[in-house]
């Protein structure tokens, strides 16, 4: 996944995009005839490389858009630190990404 982190006035804004189909139960039924084929990201986390602290913890459902883009903010990190992100989907698939905190 793509992660962009920017530091401004002590606040780090992160914009991230996960590449995922995010199919709903109804879409799966229509396409494959089986609702159980639905697959979507169920949990996303972001941690700081320096401290291991969790800065985003998000449980998600099938109603995020396809290739979901999301933004979040936190404080207490320095420029140059790295935001590590991980997701896991309904079928156990995982994805990860990282973004270095940029700023002035």
């Amino acid at each position, binding site marked *: 996944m793509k992660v962009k982190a920017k530091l401004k006035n002590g*606040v780090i804004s992160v914009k991230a995009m996960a590449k995922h189909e*995010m199919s*709903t*139960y*109804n*879409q799966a039924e*229509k396409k494959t005839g089986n609702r159980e084929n639905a697959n979507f990201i*169920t*949990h996303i*986390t972001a941690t700081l490389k320096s401290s*291991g*602290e*969790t*800065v*985003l*913890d*998000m*449980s*998600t*459902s*099938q*109603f*995020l*858009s*396809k290739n*979901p*883009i*999301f*933004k*979040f*903010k*936190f*404080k*207490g*990190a320095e420029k140059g630190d790295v935001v590590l992100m991980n997701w896991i989907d309904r079928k156990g698939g995982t994805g990860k990404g990282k973004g270095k905190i940029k700023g002035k």
Partner: protein
Amino acid sequence: MQRRKFLSFTLGAVALAVVPASVRAENFRVTKPTVWTAHTVDDAIVAMFGSSETIKDGVKVKTQDVASNGGAIPIEFSTKIPAKTVALFQDANPEAAVCAYSVGKNDITDYSVKIKMAKSGTVTVVVEGLDGKLYSGSKSLEVALGGCEG
């Protein structure tokens, strides 16, 4: 040998005790599975927070009035209330829950996420404050082209 065993055992125990403290993650899909199958917003809020009575103040929700593409509607929501949990719901899809955040001490409760909606409806954001009270904000929008195909 005894001493070595003792040492490795205590070190292991300490490591185990430390890990859960630093990882505060609460996966609501595991801890509250009924939230994700609830069909109405009220049911989902009750499943999540135990009550659907909320103070309708202090939570800002921003989105388009008319979404041309129901497959990717940007929703922005924020609150100044010190929060423990933030959850997003809508009433246009078969199930109500969209996402839930477990808020940490350094997190700023200002989020944006793109969601799918099958038809026009209302998005509701519920914030569980550190004071234990529930706050909510909502916004209705029209969806021109549904994004969930039923």
